[in-house]
């Protein structure tokens, strides 16, 4: 009765053995964790390196960066052990051991995930780097890492050109018209006021424009503008519209003519030019002389490659003749603000002849006879076309950018994007599209082909160059909502640009010629032309007057030049006086200008320094000879104030931050000499006007 069968005892013995063996597996597994593999690898690697510090710094256990106030628990350094070792910076060092490139934030203060994303606490390669069930923000590709800089740094950084570019694109393409974006403020006017559009263009043209706003493109579908960077898109995006929608919208818009323009009655002498055979030729010459191309671009075909030549401050004018009717054009040229109060187009001082010539040139030469070929015969808009057009105008979000009848643009037409960069994959709607389920893929598909993600998308069609797509993606990623980590708040920099609206006579002229469209004044204004905040310290009054009346370029390299405004003497004087008086740099106040005297010997010594010792002619032109990089100094004696030259030679970056003029280590005497020499530089014939001393005594 007592005995236990042998089989049972055997079973017990066997099960005990298996029991203990099986229990042993997990600990064995634990001894071979993935991170230990890299730990040991690093130790072996470090032994073969000359730098002995590697071994002395080696720590066999898990490493982690713990920053409680930022909720950072990053164990990346467990495998990426060399990130603080300068001797491992060489890119031949195998990952994950390579040193981190020098940046302004140390990993011990910020952790890694803050910028690189991925799962900080993880200690396994896949878990740390990829999207997993428990973590939906995989490692950010290096090419997009600037997006992380943007999450805290609201101001533009020199080190993050892509981010800056992306933000510029977002602003330029009026994304803020439909979406809410971080730090992109909504301008007063996004797109032209259409209150009177009917008086400006034909219905056929509207139809065409709505259908295909991109007029000059190369084979890749990108618009290239010579001279300086511009977006690859006209501001007007391509909106998905069906035929009847096109008809309705064009009908509605063409019906908007509340204030018909009265034809301008030209001076008969101007009308007489009608007969002139070279009327348009003269017009073209005038057009060029006035440097309209500074703001407006024209398509030019060179060597089979079509390019836009000119700026993109204003619209591209290649086919404008086929767009606007002549009466409107004339009244516009005479006073743009009358038609568009917000327009940055300067109000030129026209002589009737010039106006007549240029108008003739535009309406006859800048045309494209085939432009409206595809357009069906539309005729007058029917009432129901108009009503449905009005509805479409709202439904398609046109009213987000365009104003009609003074109605304010409707805000938040599209989804709020301020937190897009921080979204999880599960928060994104991929629809049926066959793209990888990642945030990046989503953003880029949405940008390039919105309909593929959501067939009912109202988002218009954009065409990006790879670089711009990358830049915009970066800018969007940078909008990850408010930085979660409290430690980052202190980094936030507001984007402030207080408007600069001087009063008085100068103010009027300033507004009339829209100086701030291109020039910066005390941090406000465009960045197309030089910053004029300190112009009073830099230039002599007389020279300013000359320049304003007849602007010629200073840097031969620049294509863009100051337009010919036909400024009157009175206006020129007002501008020059104001600048010389108030736009002064604390570092170069021209108060003492008058008392400066330079001996010819000094000047001769300066010439020596200029030509032999420092060979400035490498970049600067004097007379015929010299380089194109720096401004032409042939007229320096009339142009620059001695005070400015001295301050400049001492430290250029102090006066104009970011100028490429290298800062040299001149001695005080050398500075004196060089200044003396430069002040003697005057084209023969011209003599020193009293401007300098006047500028000084004021």
């Amino acid at each position, binding site marked *: *009765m*007592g005995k236990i069968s042998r089989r049972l005892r055997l079973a017990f013995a066997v099960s005990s053995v298996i029991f203990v063996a099986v229990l042993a597996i*997990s*600990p064995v*597994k*634990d001894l071979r964790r993935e991170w230990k593999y890299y730990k040991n690898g690093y130790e072996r690697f470090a032994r073969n390196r000359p730098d002995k510090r590697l071994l002395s710094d080696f720590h066999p256990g*898990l490493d*982690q960066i713990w920053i409680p106030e930022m909720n950072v*628990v990053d*164990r990346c350094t467990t495998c990426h052990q060399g990130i603080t070792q300068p001797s491992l910076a060489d890119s031949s060092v195998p990952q994950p051991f390579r040193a981190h490139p020098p940046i302004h934030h140390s990993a011990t203060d910020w952790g890694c995930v803050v910028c690189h994303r991925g799962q900080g*606490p*993880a*200690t*396994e390669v896949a*878990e740390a780097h990829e999207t997993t069930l*428990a973590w939906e923000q995989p490692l950010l590709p290096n090419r997009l890492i600037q997006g992380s800089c943007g999450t805290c740094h609201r101001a533009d950084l020199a080190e993050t050109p892509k981010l800056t570019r992306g933000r510029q694109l977002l602003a330029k393409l009026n994304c803020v018209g439909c979406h809410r974006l971080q730090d992109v403020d909504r301008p007063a006017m996004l797109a032209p006021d259409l209150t009177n559009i009917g008086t400006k263009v034909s219905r056929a043209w509207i139809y065409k424009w709505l259908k295909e706003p991109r007029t000059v493109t190369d084979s890749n579908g990108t618009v290239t503008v010579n001279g300086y960077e511009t977006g690859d898109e006209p501001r007007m995006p391509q909106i998905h519209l069906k035929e009847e929608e096109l008809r309705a919208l064009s009908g509605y818009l063409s019906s908007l003519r509340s204030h018909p323009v009265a034809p301008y009655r030209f001076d008969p002498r101007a009308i007489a030019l009608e007969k002139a055979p070279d009327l348009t030729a003269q017009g073209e010459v005038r057009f060029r002389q006035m440097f309209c191309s500074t703001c407006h671009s024209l398509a030019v075909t060179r060597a089979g490659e079509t390019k836009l030549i000119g700026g993109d401050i204003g619209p591209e004018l290649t086919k404008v003749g086929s767009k606007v009717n002549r009466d409107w054009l004339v009244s516009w040229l005479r006073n743009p603000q009358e038609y568009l109060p917000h327009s940055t187009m300067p109000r030129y001082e026209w002589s009737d002849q010039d106006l007549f010539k240029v108008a003739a040139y535009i309406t006859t030469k800048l045309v494209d006879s085939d432009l409206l070929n595809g357009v069906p015969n539309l005729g007058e808009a029917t009432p129901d076309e108009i009503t449905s057009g009005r509805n479409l105008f709202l439904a398609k979000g046109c009213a987000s950018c365009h104003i009609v009848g003074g109605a304010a643009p409707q805000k938040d037409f599209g989804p709020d994007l301020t937190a897009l960069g921080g979204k999880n994959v599960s928060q994104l709607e991929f629809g049926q599209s066959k793209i990888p389920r990642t945030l990046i893929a989503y953003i880029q598909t949405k940008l390039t082909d919105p309909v593929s993600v959501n067939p009912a998308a109202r988002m218009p069609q954009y065409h990006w160059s790879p670089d711009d797509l990358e830049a915009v993606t970066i800018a969007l990623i940078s909008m990850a909502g408010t930085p979660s980590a409290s430690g980052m708040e202190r980094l936030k920099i507001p984007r402030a640009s207080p408007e600069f609206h001087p009063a008085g006579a100068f103010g009027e002229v300033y507004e009339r010629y829209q100086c701030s469209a291109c020039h910066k004044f005390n941090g406000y204004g465009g960045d197309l032309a030089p910053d004029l905040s300190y112009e009073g310290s830099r230039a002599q009054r007389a020279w300013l007057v000359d320049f304003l009346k007849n602007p010629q370029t200073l840097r031969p390299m620049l294509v863009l030049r100051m337009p010919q405004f036909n400024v009157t003497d009175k206006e020129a004087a007002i501008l020059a006086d104001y600048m010389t008086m108030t736009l002064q740099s604390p570092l170069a106040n021209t108060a003492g200008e008058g008392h400066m005297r330079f001996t010819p010997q000094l000047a001769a010594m300066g010439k020596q320094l200029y030509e032999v010792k420092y060979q400035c002619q490498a970049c600067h032109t004097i007379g015929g000879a010299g380089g194109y990089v720096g401004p032409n100094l042939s007229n320096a004696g009339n142009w620059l104030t001695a005070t400015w030259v001295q301050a400049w030679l001492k430290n250029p970056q102090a006066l104009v931050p970011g100028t490429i003029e290298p800062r040299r280590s001149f001695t005080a005497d050398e500075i004196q000499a060089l200044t003396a020499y430069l002040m003697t530089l005057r084209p023969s014939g011209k003599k020193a006007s009293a401007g300098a001393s006047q500028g000084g005594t004021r």
Partner: protein
Amino acid sequence: MPTGAADRALESLRATRVWKSVFRRGPALTNRTRSLAVFGNLFLHFLPVKVREKSLRVRATYYLGSITFLLFVVLSVTGVLLMFYYHPAVPQAYRDLKDLRFVVSNGVFLRNLHRLAAHLMVVTVFWHMFHVFYRGGYKPPHEFNWVVGVVLLLLTLFLSYTGYLLPWDQLAFWAITVGTNIISAMPVIGGRVRYLALGGNQVGENALLRFYVLHCVVLPLVAVLLIAVHFWRVQKDGGLTVKEEDGGK
């Protein structure tokens, strides 16, 4: 006569005063000492001294009751170990689970054991009940033990459910949210009950803490108590019900 080293070691161990002071009996070789072994031992005395040979046969019980109990033991052990690395706070709880997964030696293993055993226990409890039912184990004189069993079943469900929230991840949070929303369907008191269960109107810090205390203290204690009663009643009600076919050769 035992001559193996292990046996000899055992013999010499048994000879010591300490051993004798613990087990007041010789080696369990005679029926008397064996009976002593059972009712002289707090843990064994829940069992009868003698059992029907038929009821030992696997087909009779599939050891479902035992297995359920053993799972409870496993859960207690792993659970206690896990508690050493767990803070019932938001969101610390979640981070603790990450740490168990990534840095604590064998942490993930323990958690897997706990989770698996928990699911398994729910299964075996149900299975046990159905099996007992089909064998008519609920019939007199076993009525009360059956009721105890049903209560234990509910306890098991509650234990598992309260434990479900503790990881504080999406799975946990929404499972509990969905579950507790059912409660509020109760007429009149529903909302109130849910409010009490969660210590608030939504699953939050309070809910986590309550579930934690229930999961780690209250429910286990009650369960231990009832399990004891359950075992004890088995022998008091005259052992397991045996059927003729159990003997089936």
